[in-house]
Structures are given as structure tokens and as C-alpha cells.
């Protein structure tokens, strides 16, 4: 019987089906960080359970670390205590930790792929909803809660119901100035912030195949923003070329065997999905969000909707009131105060290159504060070795040290109340970037152009 990519991977990881129908699913890779792991380690201790497979876990500190002076002790006492607790737990239980200052430290969803830990056909979890990022490699990857973190620590397994399968096909060629970020913001704007709840999404079609691995990660990263359990893309030559030679990737004969297996990972021709959506890449324009969930996106030169369903009206108006926008208006010309380029969605070397290529020889607008937070130490080093740091500095952008930073503002990188920030991150929820902050999600290219112009513009008029 025809099987989807998702089902091939899932089935290969079912230890057994429990009475009642839930599957015991084996987890190949478990990524942990300082915020959602301490209570899970405590759970092991309270139950006197060992950590079952320490070599299948990798830890890093990313969520609440400062992005300046990482060589100094963390000033903020609660953040420091959380990071210290991670270090102590990793030492106690024998977990490899790429902590602050380590050459491999970075955002958990940036370092997994760049280290070759993220592999096609694998099951990958992390106590973070953007674990869906790793699906770009043809892995079944999804975010879990802390109770589940403890379950994986204790047994390397989770007890799960199989989600429904959705396929989203985007065919055609993306227009100039339209990136992977615009593609996913467009899809979410069409399906809505809960449009894929209960589903695992496979992205397919020529526009998706044509994306780089970085672009595919951006797309899969935001699957959760339409409620999907995760998102994935069938592995292909682009995937194998990216993975080959990375630190943890298989080598030699094992690599050959792995690739042979990975080539079987695609949805069979006759696969029936529980839901299917088709989009044309030519319909996608550079996007921006205007509201307080990622589904509230429009083309940069479009207008905020005038009409919404009656049931959504109260939430919609509350959202616009928070953002200081009106129904039906255009965002063009709106002055912005901050530009944040970073997060597990868009902080990879390709993103930094896109920003540097645009801003080279230009200056950010005087009233705009523009910060760039690389996704990892490796990205930071790569940017420096390519001279991007100088280009960015000359244009008035501040290149920080790696972490989640102003995506969720757990550290001191906060956007002040009332200020507008064009951000390359993934969530525009109320207060996400700090109490009262107003976030407009966009691509790195849109963010770079906005920083230079100091206001929202139709970027198609400003491309180099």
C-alpha cells in the first residue's frame, strides 16, 4: 500500500502499539536546552530513574543567554541559575553540552543541522515547538512539553497518537525578492494560525524542491505557526550535499548505506493524504504580518482585511488595537523603530549573507536600531571569515553573539512597549518581544530594506 514519507519514518520507529492504540515511538535524537529541561531532570531524580541513553541527547544554552559579552558570567541571576543548572545536570547525567562560550554553541535548531545530528529518516524531539525545523531534512521532528522531555530521558520513547497527514504543494518559480520566509508566511496566511492543527505537514512541489536547506528549514520551522505537529520535506540531493562531511554525519561505508536508505524516503505516488493544499509560487509576494498571530499576514503592498467572520471580530479588533492599526489600511509608509534579524527561523549564514548583500554600501535609517543575532558560534565565525561583520557594522547593524535573543525576549534583548519591530523570527504574539512590543514578521531581505528605509516599503521597488 502506498505510504507517505511521514508514515515510512513513523512506522520504522514504532516499538509497539500499546493497548488502546497509542504507539510507543522511539526517538533517535533528543535536543535539550536550559528552559524546558530542569523540571525533567528533577522528575528523573524524584523517581530514581537513570538517564536511559545519554548518547542520544545533546544540550545547549540558547533561550535566555545574553548576546553581548558571553565570555563574562551571566549578570541576570535567574538566567544564570538556569544555565548553571543545565551545566550541572549535564555533568551529573553524562550529557554532551555545547554551553555558552563553546565553539559549537547556538540555537538548538541551528546547531543540530550544522553538526550533522539532524539526519533524514530520524525522529527528533526537543522541548521547543520549533523543533519542526529539522523536518527540512526529511526527519519526523516535533516539539514536546517538559513531561515528555522526562519520558524521553527515561525511556528514549514517547507514547503518541499518529497525527493526520497533510500535503502542501507549491509549484512554480518564486518571484524576485520572494524568499522561503515569504512562502511560509503566505501559506500560514491562507490556512490560518490553527489551520493545520492535528496534522503533520509534508511540503512538496517544485518551489519547495528549489529551496536551499536553509530555506527549507525556514519553511518547516514555522509549521507550528499554523498549528501543525510538524512539517517535513523529502530528502534529495540538496539534503545529502548539505549533510555530507558534517561532524556527526555518518562516514564512509555507513554514509553510502545511509544515503541508499534515505533515497527510499518519499511519499509513494498513490499516497492518500487526509488533507491537501496547492499553491502557485507566482501568487506569492514579499510578505509582512500586521497582527498578533502569524496567520495575520499580507503582501507588503496589500491591505489589512476590512471584513472578518463575526466569531473572529473581537479577537481581530483586539489584535489591531494592540498593533495600532486599522481595518483596511495599508502598512506602506509606517515608520518602524527596530529591526531584529535572528531566531531559529532566519539566523543562518544564508540569511546573514542576504542582509549583507543588500546593505553593503548603505546606511540604516538613523531612527532604527538594527541588531543581528547569528544562530550559532559557527554562523558567527563564518560571517566574520566572509567579512560580513564589517559590511554590517559599516551599515550601522550590530552583530551580536548567538542565542534566541529578541525572538522571545527572555534575555535583556527586548523591544520597548509601543515600539514597532520588523523581525525575521516566527511569532508576533502580544508581548513576545517584550511587554507591549509590536512585532511585524518578515524575511531577512524585507527586514534589511526596512532598516535602511526606516519605514515599510514595497521592497520590489528597492531591490539591488
Amino acid at each position, binding site marked *: 500500500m502506498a505510504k507517505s514519507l511521514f508514515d515510512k519514518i513513523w512506522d520504522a520507529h514504532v516499538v509497539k502499539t500499546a493497548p488502546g492504540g497509542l504507539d*510507543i515511538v522511539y526517538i533517535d535524537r533528543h535536543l535539550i536546552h536550559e528552559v524546558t529541561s530542569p523540571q525533567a531532570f528533577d522528575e528523573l531524580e524524584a*523517581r530514581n530513574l537513570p538517564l536511559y541513553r545519554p548518547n542520544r541527547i545533546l544540550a545547549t544554552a540558547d533561550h535566555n543567554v545574553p548576546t553581548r559579552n558571553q565570555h563574562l558570567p551571566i549578570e541576570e541571576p535567574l538566567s544564570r541559575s538556569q544555565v548553571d543548572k543545565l551545566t550541572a545536570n549535564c555533568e551529573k547525567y553524562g550529557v554532551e553540552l555545547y554551553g555558552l562560550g563553546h565553539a559549537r554553541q547556538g540555537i538548538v535548531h541551528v546547531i543540530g543541522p550544522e553538526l550533522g545530528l539532524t539526519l533524514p529518516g530520524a525522529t527528533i524531539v526537543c522541548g521547543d*515547538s520549533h523543533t519542526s525545523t529539522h523536518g527540512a531534512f526529511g526527519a519526523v521532528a516535533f516539539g*514536546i512539553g517538559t513531561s515528555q522531555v*522526562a*519520558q524521553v530521558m527515561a*525511556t528514549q520513547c514517547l507514547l503518541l497518537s499518529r497525527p493526520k497527514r497533510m500535503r502542501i504543494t507549491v509549484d512554480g518559480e518564486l518571484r524576485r525578492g520572494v524568499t522561503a520566509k515569504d512562502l511560509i508566511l503566505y501559506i500560514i496566511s491562507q490556512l490560518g494560525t490553527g489551520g493545520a492543527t492535528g496534522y503533520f505537514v509534508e511540503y512538496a512541489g517544485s518551489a519547495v524542491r528549489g529551496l536551499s536547506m536553509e530555506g527549507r528549514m525556514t519553511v518547516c520551522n514555522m509549521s507550528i*505557526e499554523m*498549528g501543525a505537529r510538524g512539517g517535513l520535506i523529502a530528502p534529495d540531493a540538496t539534503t545529502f550535499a548539505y549533510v555530507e562531511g558534517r561532524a556527526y554525519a555518518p562516514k564512509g561505508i555507513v554514509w553510502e548505506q545511509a544515503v541508499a536508505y534515505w533515497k527510499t524516503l518519499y511519499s509513494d505516488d498513490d499516497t492518500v493524504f487526509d488533507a491537501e493544499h496547492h499553491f502557485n509560487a507566482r501568487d506569492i509576494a514579499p510578505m509582512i504580518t500586521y497582527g498578533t498571530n502569524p496567520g495575520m499576514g499580507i503582501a507588503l503592498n496589500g491591505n489589512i482585511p476590512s471584513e472578518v467572520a463575526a*466569531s473572529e471580530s473581537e479577537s481581530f479588533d483586539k489584535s489591531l488595537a494592540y498593533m495600532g492599526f486599522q481595518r483596511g489600511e495599508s502598512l506602506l509608509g509606517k515608520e518602524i523603530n527596530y529591526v531584529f534579524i535572528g531566531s531559529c527561523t532566519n539566523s543562518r549564514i544564508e540569511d546573514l549573507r542576504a542582509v549583507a548583500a543588500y546593505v553593503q554600501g548603505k546606511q540604516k535609517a538613523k531612527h532604527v536600531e538594527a541588531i543581528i543575532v547569528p544562530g550559532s558560534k559557527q554562523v558567527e565565525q563564518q560571517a566574520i571569515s566572509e567579512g560580513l561583520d564589517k559590511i554590517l557594522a559599516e551599515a550601522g547593524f550590530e552583530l551580536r553573539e548567538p542565542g534566541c535573543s529578541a525572538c522571545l525576549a527572555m534575555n535583556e534583548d527586548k523591544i520597548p512597549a509601543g515600539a514597532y519591530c520588523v523581525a525575521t523570527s516566527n511569532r508576533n504574539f502580544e508581548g513576545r518581544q517584550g511587554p507591549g512590543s509590536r512585532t511585524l514578521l518578515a524575511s531577512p531581505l524585507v527586514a534589511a530594506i526596512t532598516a535602511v528605509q526606516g519605514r515599510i516599503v514595497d521592497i520590489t521597488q528597492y531591490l539591488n
Partner: protein
Amino acid sequence: MEKFQTLHSSAIPLPLENIDTDQIIPARFLKATTREGFGENLFRDWRCNADGTPKPNFVLNDARYNGQILLAGKNFGCGSSREHAAWALYDAGFRVVISSYFADIFRGNALNTGLLPLQVTDAELSSLFDLVEQDANTQFVVNLPEQTLHVPATDQVIHFDIDPYKKECLINGYDDIDFLVSQKQAIEAYEQRRTWAW
């Protein structure tokens, strides 16, 4: 985990859609390393001004409404996977959230916390909001073994679905970790028979 069987309570209405976990518990309060105490910052930025004084218009500050049931608009708990959102609701005294659908990760986290995510239809949810709007003291009876939500005042009975395994867990106070640890032999056998673990 505490056992859950039945609950008699009034409900607190929050008729907004897509309430995300950043609203339920903002990220800056996730720095604690234990599970307790998150209730203090539940819906912090909706409930309090920047100086910590209460916002009088927010429903949790409205003395007319109280109870252990939160009645919320559809797609409750979307966004971040932080289980702290479920812990914060539980810590603040909630035992049931009623909505017309829940984000997947939140649903799982709630069940693992002993907080019942009770899903009704859009039409049923709308009728429940109407009841609470008419009488803030409207009583509800949640009966988990029977899978029913009963409104004595109108004699309305709504049947709800729940995974049978998760239902047993809630009723008995069991959690997945106990079950999974009991499956160690099967897990080790799986690791042995796998041919392609790189």
C-alpha cells in the same frame, strides 16, 4: 499527578480566539527551575499593568467571575510548547479548560499536568459563553468517567471525547512515564532489531 474524576464549578469566560501560551505565561517568567508558582504570573500582561497593578477590565480581576473552569475561544494554547502554561493554569486553581479546539502540544501538556482540556463544538461553546454572560454563577458539572459536561440550570448535557488511555491516566493519577518505564524490554528489543541506526 492528582486524580481527576468529577468537578462542580462555575466558569470564567475568556471569549478570545487563538490564545497563545505566551499570553498564558510570558517567556520572561519561565526562568524558574521547579514546576510550582507559575500561577502568580498567569496571563500576567493581560491581568496586570506594567507596574503590577491589576487591569480592572480583565476577567480574572472581575469579582463576579470565579471557579476552576476556564471557558476560552477556539485554538486555545497555540504557539510555544512550554508546559509552564498548563502548570500556570493548574497552579492558579484551574482544573478544566473548555474550548472548541486546543493546540496539539498544549492538549498533551495539559493532560500530563492533570488539567482536563474539554473540547466542545463551536455552537456548544457559544451557548456556554451565553450562559455565563447571563449568569456569572452558572454551575457546571464535569464528569470524566461519563465524559459529560452537565449544566444543571438548563439540564443541558454535552458529551465530550477523550483518548481512553489518557482518560484512565487522569482518573487514576497515572502518567506516561510509569507506562513507558514498564515497557523497557520491548524498547531494548527494538534497539536490537534496528538495522539502520546511525
